[in-house]
């Protein structure tokens, strides 16, 4: 039990953080916001899954992926395919030339369901696919690149290219994927109408629970030897290799884990928002998800959630009131986070905390995981930041 407390909940400071976040997500926001806005928050929280993955991948392992939209999208499309098939029952589509297949396929003169779609008639398969398809793609891409020692900037640019490839591929195959408009008009999940307000609440709470779960799983991983290894790898990859570790396999593991989390986020997005399209898969959304993580502080799991909420709320506010200014603000945000506060919100929080609330006990790097993150982030802030 103590192990769980220390490693997963993160000791005293970690537990407090989780509790505060939980109160915010489960109590404060549902009470303070109307159903519409709460649904928006739910949407933002699905992006947070990607940001949490990036904290593992980028903040802790030093691997920057500019293509996490790929995995978010894959998870989303898997869920959307199931939901679309359910919504395209013969009864619902009886006015089509070919009833029983999704509307966009009918418009493209398809006469039967493509082979790729058939397994998605079954919920267990779709559920598994949400997690496994992104992980499998990450496995292939990661193994190919990390084994060849492709890293740093090269890796980032290639992930960007892959995001572009996937979004163009989806876009150009309307018959198969719904094309640019994506997959829309989703109605029920196993007979349960997901468009009602009750359903939206249920989905919101499910999303929060899974997000907290993702954070706890990440904490657990980081508290093991692998956590220390990833930090070492970020610092001195060669030395880790000569200590007898196959560096590539660890990068692949973290990449797959981050991909799986992003996939879950994508699926929850589809359930809450009701559609998916290539606009969530390509270069722009992928790099935006990086800024969510960076805003929160790329070393901080909790920060990832706050960063995502903050940036997206800002985006909504700007878009409603000063649409011309939003891109300026976003661009400025990218630059500011990189140059002025590289440890994001978490870094600011840490420096405020140590300045005003430090109790004189030095944070031991051997103990709690959040303390490792804190010490690392403070140390990094002091040394001017490293990529």
């Amino acid at each position, binding site marked *: 039990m103590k192990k769980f407390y220390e490693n997963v909940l993160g000791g005293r400071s970690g537990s407090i953080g989780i509790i505060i976040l939980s109160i915010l997500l489960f109590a404060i926001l549902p009470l303070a916001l109307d159903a519409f806005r709460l649904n928006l928050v739910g949407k933002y929280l699905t992006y947070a899954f990607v940001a949490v993955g990036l904290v593992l991948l*980028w903040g802790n392992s030093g691997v*920057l992926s*500019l293509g996490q939209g790929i995995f978010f999208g894959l998870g989303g499309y898997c869920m959307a395919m199931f939901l679309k098939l359910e919504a395209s029952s013969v009864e619902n589509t009886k006015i089509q030339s070919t009833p029983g297949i999704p509307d966009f396929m009918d418009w493209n003169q398809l006469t039967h369901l493509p082979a790729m779609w058939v397994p998605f008639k079954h919920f267990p398969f779709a559920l598994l696919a949400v997690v496994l398809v992104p992980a499998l793609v990450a496995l292939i891409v990661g193994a*190919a*690149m990390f084994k*060849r*020692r*492709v890293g*740093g*900037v*090269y890796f*980032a*640019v*290639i992930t*960007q*290219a*892959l995001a*572009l*490839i996937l979004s*163009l*591929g989806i*876009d*150009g*195959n309307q018959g198969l994927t719904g094309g640019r408009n994506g997959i829309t008009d989703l109605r029920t999940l196993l007979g349960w109408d997901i468009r009602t307000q009750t359903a939206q609440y249920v989905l919101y709470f499910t999303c929060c629970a899974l997000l907290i779960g993702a954070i706890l799983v990440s904490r657990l991983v980081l508290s093991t030897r692998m956590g220390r290894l990833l930090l070492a790898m970020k610092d001195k990859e060669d030395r880790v290799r000569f200590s007898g570790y196959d560096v590539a396999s660890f990068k692949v593991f973290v990449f797959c884990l981050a991909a799986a989390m992003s996939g879950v986020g994508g699926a929850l997005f589809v359930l809450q928002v009701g559609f998916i399209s290539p606009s969530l898969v390509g*270069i722009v959304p992928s*790099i935006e998800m*990086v*800024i969510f993580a*960076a805003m929160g502080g790329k070393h901080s799991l909790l920060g990832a959630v706050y960063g995502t909420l903050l940036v997206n709320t800002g985006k909504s506010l700007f878009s409603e009131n000063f649409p*011309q200014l939003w*891109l*300026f603000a*976003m*661009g*400025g*945000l*990218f*630059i500011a*986070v*990189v*140059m002025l506060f*590289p440890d994001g919100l978490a870094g600011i929080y840490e420096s405020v905390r140590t300045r005003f609330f430090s109790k004189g006990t030095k944070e031991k790097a051997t103990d709690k995981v959040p303390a490792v993150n804190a010490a690392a982030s403070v140390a990094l802030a002091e040394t001017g*930041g*490293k*990529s």
Partner: protein
Amino acid sequence: MQFPNAILAEYTFSEIKSIFVMQGFAGLSLFSVLLLMALGLAIIFGQMGVVNLAHGEFMALGAYMVYLCSQITADHFPAFQPYYFILAIGVAFVVAALLGAFVEWSMIRFLYKRPLDTLLATWGLSLIMQQAFRSIFGAREVTPTLPEWLMGSFKPTETIDIPINGVFVMGLSLLLTLGIYIFMFRSRTGLHMRATVQNRTMSGAVGINTGLVDRFTFAMGCGIAGVAGAAFTTIGSTGPDSGSRYIVDTFLVVVFGGAGSMLGTIVSSFGIAQAQSVSEFFLEGTMGKVATLMAIVVILMFRPQGLFPSKVRS
């Protein structure tokens, strides 16, 4: 997605030859634009290790400058109309280079040891520039009035149609490539640039002002992008997001050619441009681009150092 064989069967052999030639020339225009973009980027990335995701926006800046020159000439100096274009290219270079120098001074020089952060910061810059274009020039695409001598085409045979602007752009690219080569490898400033990149401390110790050299190098890379933009106006219209359309391609070109090798950049941009334009003809629209990109990525996974890697002992 139709299979290529079905399409091929529709044309006669001589028609196919003509298609290849014409696509070849279409590919050459694309090649020129990619080459100019890639050269600028190769200088910045290959030489300095700096990743400039806003490079496409510098290209767009060049294009917009040409448009601006075109408008000014039309409004105030109509007699000058046939001649303004060459001057506009110069303007594009200078404006892009100046902005590049400013960006280096205010932002890039703090990030030299942090390549991943440079990625993010320059992405932010690209957003700002895109919005600036949108606010100043409007969201719709614009085209400068091209001079008469750029319009039209050669017709060596019945079925082959070679556009003059394509030839012009290609000529400009090759000229510029040659110019860059001479500058980098035969001039004193070029020597300083290469020295600074290879050994900064020593260069400083022998009296080279490495800070200025860095600024100059970055500015030059951006200036070349500006010229690419000017060239681009002859083959397409310019909008706020025109730059982002080519940025990924350009990076792949540089990485595929082997960052740091000029020959690699040239060969790579040629190969990729041709591959893309031929495949675009046979596969529907964007799928041609997808196929080319996929091929490049797969090849890069097997040979990440590119075609002409630099043989430096680590």
